[in-house]
């Protein structure tokens, strides 16, 4: 059973996104198929060049770039949200698949989860 974990908030302002990643990495650690879907302002997690040292947080960019190594099957991003926030091939981290119809994507997973 494939789990889809959805992130819809920007990075760093709250801990929900980090706790979503923890869920994804835990499933992957137990060899359970899991993918991440970024929608709305959540797509900003996928932008290159994040430098959160100044707000005393760790960058999540490296974790996400290493997601496939950890066993996360796919990083999916809502195409319209990417367009809205100026995310293009040039500034998205590697390994992101943009999807046009999130509703259709959602239908494909038995287990769809928000962290909070």
């Amino acid at each position, binding site marked *: 059973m494939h789990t889809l974990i959805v992130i819809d908030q*920007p990075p*760093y*302002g709250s801990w929900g996104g980090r706790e979503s990643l923890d869920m994804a990495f835990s499933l992957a650690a137990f060899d359970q198929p899991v993918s991440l879907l970024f929608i709305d302002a959540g797509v*900003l997690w996928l932008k290159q060049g*994040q*430098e959160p040292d100044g*707000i005393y947080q760790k960058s999540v960019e490296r974790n996400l770039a290493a997601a496939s190594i950890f066993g996360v099957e796919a990083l999916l991003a809502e195409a319209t949200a990417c367009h*809205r*926030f*100026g995310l293009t091939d040039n500034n998205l981290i590697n390994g992101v698949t943009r999807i046009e119809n999130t509703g259709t994507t959602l239908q494909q997973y038995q287990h769809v989860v928000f962290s909070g």
Partner: protein
Amino acid sequence: MHTLHIVSKPPGNTRFRECLGMMGEQDALLLTGNAVTALADSTITLPAMVYALQEDVRARAIDPRQDISGQVTFDDMVSLTIRAQRVISW
């Protein structure tokens, strides 16, 4: 500047929209935390006087729009709160 409006919530939050809807013409907007993502959001029309906390902008790799008043440090933020006749945090 009459009122300094400080917003910390992202542009999709109702609070952000309420703030934009109630700002006066002499007012300035200061974006902190997740609110700085409004600078990258092509669906949001920001008022003339907009500031954003530099460290929050850098954290999220936001490319600031050319037309905004600029990124500010915490030192600038203190000055803004003193220059303003009143401060509202949203």
